[in-house]
């Protein structure tokens, strides 16, 4: 027999290659499952977006492209009011929760470990740990009591409720950022004669910036998307966009809802993409 290395025909070369790169990690069917997940997650939303551009009133048959439903939605006073209410609440909740979360994150990472630190984490994360419906009816009970005693009404209740459940979302990225920032930089500033306030404004805050931006964006998205808590405690005239959409769905499906929904999804997606970019920069 000839020496196998010299006798090997040229055509055998690629075959051997393929055997060499065979992926031992791959499992049969896993790739298909992953794609199935992506399709499941995205198909419904994509169909919704597509039909929001349908010219026909039908949400079944595609007849042609049109922006009519967007025009209709934007002219609708109910939708415009709801959007304005949503934005007002989200802005207030974002500002309050981001400030509170930043301060809390500084307290839990920039001072020595303290007794009760676990309890503090527990309290801050509490809104994440119990089912939203429970928080919703509990908050409703409290607010009903307060309303009865003080007679005060208004959108303030919703704003406060949103601020409360936004805090843990704002807190997460800010704390994560502070934990990766070593104390050494702040010590270096103090070593170079910066008094505590200057250390904070010239070193801590600029470095924490991306974390705060990320926290604020998360808070905004979470507030904008809330349904259950808002549904339970909103008074008359305090309809947010998701609540308006829920009511409209209950009345019947129209392409107008598809258009509003698409806008709301687009806002969230844009914010989250921005967030990813911010975090990318943070990692560098």
């Amino acid at each position: 027999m000839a020496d196998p290395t010299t006798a090997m025909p040229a055509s055998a070369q690629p075959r051997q290659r393929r055997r060499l790169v065979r992926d031992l990690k791959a499992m049969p069917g896993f790739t298909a499952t992953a794609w199935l997940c992506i399709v499941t997650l995205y198909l419904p939303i994509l169909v919704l977006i597509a039909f929001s551009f349908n010219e026909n009133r039908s949400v079944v048959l595609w007849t042609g492209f049109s922006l009519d439903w967007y025009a209709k939605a934007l002219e609708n006073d109910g939708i415009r009011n709801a959007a304005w209410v949503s934005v007002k609440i989200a802005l207030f909740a974002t500002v309050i929760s981001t400030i509170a979360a930043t301060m809390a994150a500084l307290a839990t990472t920039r001072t020595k470990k303290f007794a009760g630190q676990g309890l503090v984490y527990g309290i801050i994360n509490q809104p994440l740990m119990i089912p939203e419906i429970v928080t919703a009816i509990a908050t409703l009970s409290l607010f009903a009591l307060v309303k009865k005693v003080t007679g005060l009404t208004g959108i303030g209740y919703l704003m406060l409720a949103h601020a409360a459940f936004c805090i843990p979302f704002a807190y997460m990225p800010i704390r994560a950022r502070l934990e990766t920032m070593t104390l050494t930089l702040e010590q270096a500033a103090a070593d170079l004669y910066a008094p505590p306030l200057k250390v904070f404004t010239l070193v801590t805050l600029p470095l924490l910036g991306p974390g705060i931006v990320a926290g604020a964006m998360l808070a905004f998205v979470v507030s904008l998307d809330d349904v259950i808590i808002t549904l339970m405690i909103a008074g008359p005239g305090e309809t947010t966009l998701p609540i308006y959409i829920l009511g409209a769905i209950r009345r019947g499906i129209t392409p107008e809802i598809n258009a509003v929904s698409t806008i709301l999804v687009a806002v969230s997606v844009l914010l989250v993409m921005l967030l990813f970019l911010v975090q990318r920069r943070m990692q560098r």
Partner: protein
Amino acid sequence: MSGREPQSALAAAIEQNKRTERVTRAWLLAPALTIILAISILPLGITVVYSFLTPGTYGGVTWEFSTDSYVQFLFQRDIFDDTLVFNSAYVSIFLRSIGLALGATLGALILGFPTAYFIATKPREQRNIWLFLITLPFWTNLLIRTYAMLLIIRDEGIINIMLMKAGIISSPLTILYTDTAVFIGLIYSFLPFMVLPIYASLEKLDFSLVEAGYDLYANRLKVLFHVIVPLAKPGIVAGCILVFIPGLGAYITPELLGGGKKLMIGNMIAMQFGASRNWPFGSAAALILMALVILVLLLNALAARRGASNNG
């Protein structure tokens, strides 16, 4: 300089430092803790109180002590002779909810584990894209996502249309307003919660262990169940909890996809504060739901502790 003076000055400085730190910390924590304690935790206390009161006629409560809410959960009071008769209506809603949440957890695991594994074995750049795709739905409005699901699974939805066009079925499948719809909706809603923690534990996995498995004559299935799954267990457990708990308390999914007929705990609680107007009973049901959730978390913590002490 006498020996004592500077020492007491040092002690004073140490004390002063500690005090400053304590005061600063208290001020920094005050806003977040105040808001959450007042708006999220205090209300839970009120809920406990409400659950022991008597319902008011137009919603709200009358301040009269009563354990009726808890009794009502299991029994019905006969209108004529005031005796208690066992009533399975509410218990069955709880059992249905637990069943649906468990089913959805299992479904999400069957879909989520392979997906997480697939992502973890991708090159780093592709991984980030996949993770982004999995995370993105989480940040979009759950109501809208559920509504979108409703659009495609209803009788005139594209799934039925496509199946009919393909000639597989002749009349539309009724999925909407059934348990199946709620089940699909729950998986769809919470799937990202399953994928992410499993991915997190698989990402840390050293894949040379898989190779070692093959090297020791295991086949793919054996490697999967004897090497990979045990190592990914913390992620799997976390994922299951993260799907089960929100699934159990789900409101939007059964509301839209169950058509208000196929109730889950969440809807039942909400109803007591709306149309049915029985706040004490709603409060009691909410507390029972919370107790279930806490039980799951406690069991998990116990298992984790036992696991840790077994290893240690």
